[in-house]
């Protein structure tokens, strides 16, 4: 959790935390409001977390993971996620077919 209102401090706030919340939400047809109500947070906070503008606490990260029923590392990562299609079907060159 980090808000500084100071550009230099923001630069020092460490690496970005990537997440798949937007994908999971879209996949399950959940609105930001629904997810926010379930997690007991402001719907805008959901947007901030999705965009990577706000790093949730460990406690909130666990609540999100429990809500989606997925391990925490399936939702949050310190490195960019590969697209789900690539993970499921493997990497293919553009235009290639089975």
């Amino acid at each position, binding site marked *: 959790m980090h808000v500084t209102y100071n550009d230099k401090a923001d630069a020092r706030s460490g690496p970005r935390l990537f997440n798949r919340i937007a994908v999971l939400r879209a996949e399950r047809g959940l609105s930001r409001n629904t997810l926010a109500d379930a997690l007991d947070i402001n719907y805008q906070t959901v947007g901030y977390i999705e965009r990577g*503008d706000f790093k949730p606490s460990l406690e909130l990260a666990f609540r999100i993971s429990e809500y989606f029923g997925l391990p925490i590392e399936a939702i949050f990562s310190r490195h960019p996620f590969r697209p789900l299609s690539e993970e499921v079907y493997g990497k293919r060159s553009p235009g290639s077919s089975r």
Partner: protein
Amino acid sequence: MVHRGNRRALVALTYIAFLSIMVTLILLLPPGRHQINAVWICMVLAYNVVSRLVFGKLVSDTVLPQPRVKLSTLGLAAGQHHREDDLDEREIAVRDAAYFRAYQVLAVYSIVVWFISPLTFELTASTALRVFQFLTLPLVAIALTLPQAIVLCCEPDVPEEAMVR
């Protein structure tokens, strides 16, 4: 959410208007008890008009809910502000960052006033009093409202697509 450029303009205009009112009161009222009343009027205006109606409404539309406080206490009484369980963790982080930044600004301003105050020793007593009031009254204006102004000035714009709930 109002765009940050507009929020900053609103903050600047509000402070210019409010400081103009304060300067006018200082210049028009004779020194003494009337000016103490003027300072009180400014504090009531700062809290109830600037903080609650102008900044507070906008802040509550952006990131923080409006605290439920009594008008007469200027929000300075203990236990009237948000309890931690009224806010989520991002709102708490935003509030704390804004209060910390406001504290820094007020501390720097107070130190600057302290260092330049010897310049008034050469002036006559009444002129020195006026100068001192001009320098310190902005503290009245900003002390009650600065955290909200900082939130309005610094909170980033939310992308259009993120406005959909």
